């Protein structure tokens, strides 16, 4: 096959691939209404739980509130154990603490991909392959969509939206990002965030009590895992590393600083 012929093939295929991407973007948009319905259901569940909780908490001190809420459900002992009495109680308790953690993790991913793209533009990462740039933009947009969906749950429940990255590991993540000088370095860092996110959602499916919350986490975990698979491929590693998704890298609710 001649070089010219190869170029023609590539040109046509690239066009086809872009068309395919556009089709997939449509498919992505098509999933949004269902997702919105899911978050509305979750907001309603949280509101109902709040009403029940307020009734239950009459006469009980605020410091005992978080523990009482979680203990009542009997299904989220991990979070109950990690809620410590502080001067200013967190607005995020029970399932909402997991939702807040999810937003923070998503915001962290958006921040990381954004910073990487900025560094790439500034030429600090060397030559960035087109596929890697496309990956970063697409993954960043999907993480932003996840954050938006989870924030809608928080605001719907009367809690403040999580705007930044209130995580104890954020300083270390920023430091690591600042040190990265190659595409491989960025991919490795992104992989750690994607694996953490996928595992956190998998963990969440058995540690939140709300059916809508479980369903929402179940729809996001596979997508983060897909991001991780492609990052493994980019790093020259086998894309499907585990037969069963482990939980050893799942973020703990104690990571949240609000």
């Amino acid at each position: 096959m001649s070089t010219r012929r190869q170029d023609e093939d590539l040109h046509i295929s690239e066009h086809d691939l872009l068309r395919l991407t556009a089709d997939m973007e449509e498919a992505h948009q098509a999933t949004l209404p269902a997702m919105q319905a899911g978050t509305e259901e979750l907001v309603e569940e949280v509101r109902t739980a709040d009403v029940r909780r307020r009734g239950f908490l009459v006469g009980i001190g605020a410091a005992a509130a978080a523990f009482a809420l979680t203990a009542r459900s009997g299904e989220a002992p991990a979070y109950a154990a990690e809620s410590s009495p502080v001067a200013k109680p967190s607005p995020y308790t029970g399932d909402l603490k997991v939702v807040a953690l999810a937003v923070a993790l998503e915001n962290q991913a958006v921040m990381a991909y954004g910073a990487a793209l900025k560094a790439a533009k500034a030429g600090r990462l060397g030559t960035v392959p087109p596929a890697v740039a496309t990956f970063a933009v697409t993954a960043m947009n999907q993480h932003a969509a996840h954050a938006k969906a989870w924030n809608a749950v928080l605001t719907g429940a009367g809690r403040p939206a999580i705007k930044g990255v209130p995580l104890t590991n954020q300083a270390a993540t920023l430091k690591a990002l600042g040190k990265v000088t190659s595409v491989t370095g960025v991919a490795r860092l992104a992989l750690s965030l994607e694996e953490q996110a996928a595992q956190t959602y998998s963990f969440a499916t058995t540690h939140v009590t709300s059916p809508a919350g479980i369903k929402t986490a179940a729809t996001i975990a596979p997508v983060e895992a897909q991001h991780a698979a492609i990052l493994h491929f980019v790093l020259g590693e086998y894309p499907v590393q585990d037969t069963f998704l482990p939980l050893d890298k799942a973020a703990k609710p104690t990571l949240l600083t609000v």
Partner: protein
Amino acid sequence: MGVQRIDTRLLKQLSEQSQDLNSDAMRLTHGSLVGMDRTVSRDDIRALQTAASLENLAVSVYRTAAGLPFIKHGNRTVAAFIATTITQHSAHARAFNAAAMNAGGVAQTAVNPKYAAVVKQALPGIKGPADVVALAVTLEDAATQTYVKNTGEVRDVQLRKLFASVAPVEAQHRATLLAVQALLGAGRPELVAIPTDVSKLPAAAGSVAFPQAFYPSKNASPVTEGAVK
């Protein structure tokens, strides 16, 4: 002739991976069974059997594919992917069946009837790796959507944990296959390699593997679809 083409290092690596994966399966299955609610609903057992039926079909299809000349003597990365994926789906089937039996049900050893018909219809048209990949994409998507839905619907928390641990893996299979499909479609089979030449990957190859921000479940198999009658 075929024997001469076998890469013994690759086989050794796959064999080691297979042992690791089997250990993972045993560990996870054991973890799923410990503390499992003895009063698992009938629908939960059906969901497990239907999941096993999807896994059985995937194993059967990948095994058949592995024996096709254009796979056996074709791209080594595709062949290695198929071999590893057979091991992973086999482990999933064992885990689902073990959970079903522990809950008082029986193991599902048959293939999923709905998707078996899809496979039967597709078989005459399979002429090359791209056709195999397209069929595998369909099966992996069916499994992922089913497990995403089951994660939200099974009542037993240990079963939920099992489905939640398998759905992302099937999604990764699909992501890998979509990337391979894109590269084969682009006439760049040489880039289907580990490691690949990342600098030569087409731009769109960076996004085709994860078309949705939220994994859908509208095409999930109902719990009765592959249940033991």
